[in-house]
């Protein structure tokens, strides 16, 4: 077959200006990719190397040492973090899940759009503003009632504000993925709205909701700013929800900027625990959702 096209007209010369530009841009883009991953590797390797060298059993069960004193740990900060994240989860999970049920199951499309919009904007509110808000709502109220001031309660409330939009959005997405057939089948069998939601829709979406809640909890346990003036810090074991409470994140901040070597090494150990907590939950969540899909 004869062809009217000149030979090789469809291949580009490797030295043409357009091909060169193409190659240069590819190199530039890959350089960007490497630059983006560099900090991740740098932060992770530094935290792991520095953190592991100061990690031991005492770190988990003992109280913080005095400056320049050897040993000690941050058992009280771990307990405090668990308590405050627990309070936050108790407030935000029911709140967020029920709110999400309304916008996916019962509301009009317009209301749903507005609530989603508000939740997205709420998730962009700086965490320090959540702290100022919790200070006004909880700390000042406790002072007025003479029950205390800076406390685990205030810290938990501030963290709940930060978790709320995440819980709402992940539950919202999980519920939207539940097949419409399931709802119709349930209604067809004569179930009420309440029965359909609680016995058919929620169980179907539960794994995704749990994953979302776990990620939100992991994220909240690393938050520092809102705890600085709601929970403050303490060198002792927490014995009441109405007293200043230590947390891992605030301990990292306080000890990292201190001039004492022993406090700095505790800060690295605490950073390692925070990072591991976030990494492990993210990896498990990713793995669990991929298995499902």
């Amino acid at each position, binding site marked *: 077959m004869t062809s009217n096209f000149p030979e090789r007209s469809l291949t580009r010369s490797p030295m043409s200006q*357009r091909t060169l*530009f*193409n190659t240069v*841009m*590819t190199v*530039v*883009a890959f350089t*960007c*990719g490497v630059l*983006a*991953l560099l900090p*991740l590797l*740098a*932060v992770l390797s*530094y*935290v792991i190397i520095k953190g592991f060298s100061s990690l031991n059993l005492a770190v988990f069960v003992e109280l913080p040492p005095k400056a320049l004193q050897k040993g000690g740990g941050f058992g009280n900060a771990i307990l405090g973090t668990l308590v405050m994240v627990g309070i936050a989860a108790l407030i935000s999970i029911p709140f967020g899940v*029920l*709110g999400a049920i*309304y*916008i996916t199951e*019962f*509301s009009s499309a317009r209301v749903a759009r*507005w*609530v989603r919009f*508000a939740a*997205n904007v*709420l998730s*962009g*509110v*700086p*965490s*320090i*503003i959540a*702290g*100022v*808000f919790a200070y*006004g709502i909880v700390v000042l109220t406790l002072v007025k009632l003479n029950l205390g001031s800076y406390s685990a309660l205030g810290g938990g409330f501030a963290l709940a*504000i930060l978790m709320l*939009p995440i819980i709402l959005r992940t539950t919202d997405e999980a519920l939207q993925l539940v097949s*419409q057939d399931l709802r119709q089948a349930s*209604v067809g069998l004569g179930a*009420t*709205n*309440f029965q359909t939601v609680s016995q058919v829709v929620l169980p179907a979406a539960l794994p995704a909701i749990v994953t979302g809640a776990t990620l939100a909890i992991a994220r909240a346990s*690393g*938050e*520092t*700013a809102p705890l*600085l*003036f709601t929970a403050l810090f303490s060198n002792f074991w927490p014995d009441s929800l109405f007293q200043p409470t230590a947390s891992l*994140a605030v301990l*990292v*901040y306080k000890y*990292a900027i201190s001039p004492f070597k022993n406090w700095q090494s505790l800060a690295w150990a605490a950073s390692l625990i*925070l*990072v591991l907590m*976030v*990494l492990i939950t*993210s990896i498990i969540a*990713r793995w669990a959702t991929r298995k499902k899909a």
Partner: protein
Amino acid sequence: MTTNSQNLSSAMKNRSGAEKSLDQGFIWLTKIFAFGVAGTLLWIGSQVAIGSWPAIQKFGAGFLVNTTWNPVNDSYGVLPQIYGTLLSSFIGLLIAVPIGVGTAIVLSEDFLPAKVKLVLVFAVELLAAIPSVVYGVWGIFVLVPILTNLGKWLNGYFGWLPFFSTSPTGPGMLPAGVILAIMTLPIITALSRDALISVPPSLRQASIGLGATRWETILQVLIPAAFSGIVSAVMLGLGRAMGETMAVTMLIGNSNNISLSLLAPANTISSLLANQFSEASGLQVAALMYAALVLFFLTLVVNILAELIVMRVKRI
């Protein structure tokens, strides 16, 4: 989903009263919580406004242009902090936007095998999940020494430029900007990638079919098509950068001055709050609340704009 509930209401006519009221109660309960989530935003705004009322009465709009912050004689203004917030975010975005968009292109095109891409996308997500305070610790011990050396060199050779006119003392505007770049990068990358992926494949095929090279397609077809998505990614990154507290507080030096030099220490609104709130009393608390209100307003505007752009993109 609305039709769903309408069908239900007709079926409910022959139910017992208790069942009906349980059902109605449940719907009302979820409704209250849904509106509660939206209402939280208003609650935060009004609460912070109430807390700052004494300072608003005393200083008015002059608070925004006054440059002193002096708790001893109760004279307050947040111009240096507003300047620091905006400049540090700007430096952060200046570094993060090109790198983030470049990374998004690598992760959305078929440069790499799908499995490698999946791992890299996950790695970028992890970058977003590392707590802010850990970035701060890393910044103090690793980033600041590196940038101080770089700053000394810049000051030595380019000291005649106003940006490098002071000798670096360690913490300052530059380290804060770099850490903000690292922290906003994952958001910009992830959202830009989403925008690039959702460009219809027919556009790409048409462009390649007309004989365009890969990069001609990317720059002249894909990026214009995904432009509003990328802009909203940058806006959300900006909102995040302006509100970021811990890492910046640990790296910016917390000095309430306005300096053109990037090597000099500065301050941001969120760092001011983090440093002073727990030890403040009286009018200082109100002044800090006023500063918080300014920050709340600034981030609210940026976030709402970003959301509106996203909404418009989704409707098209």
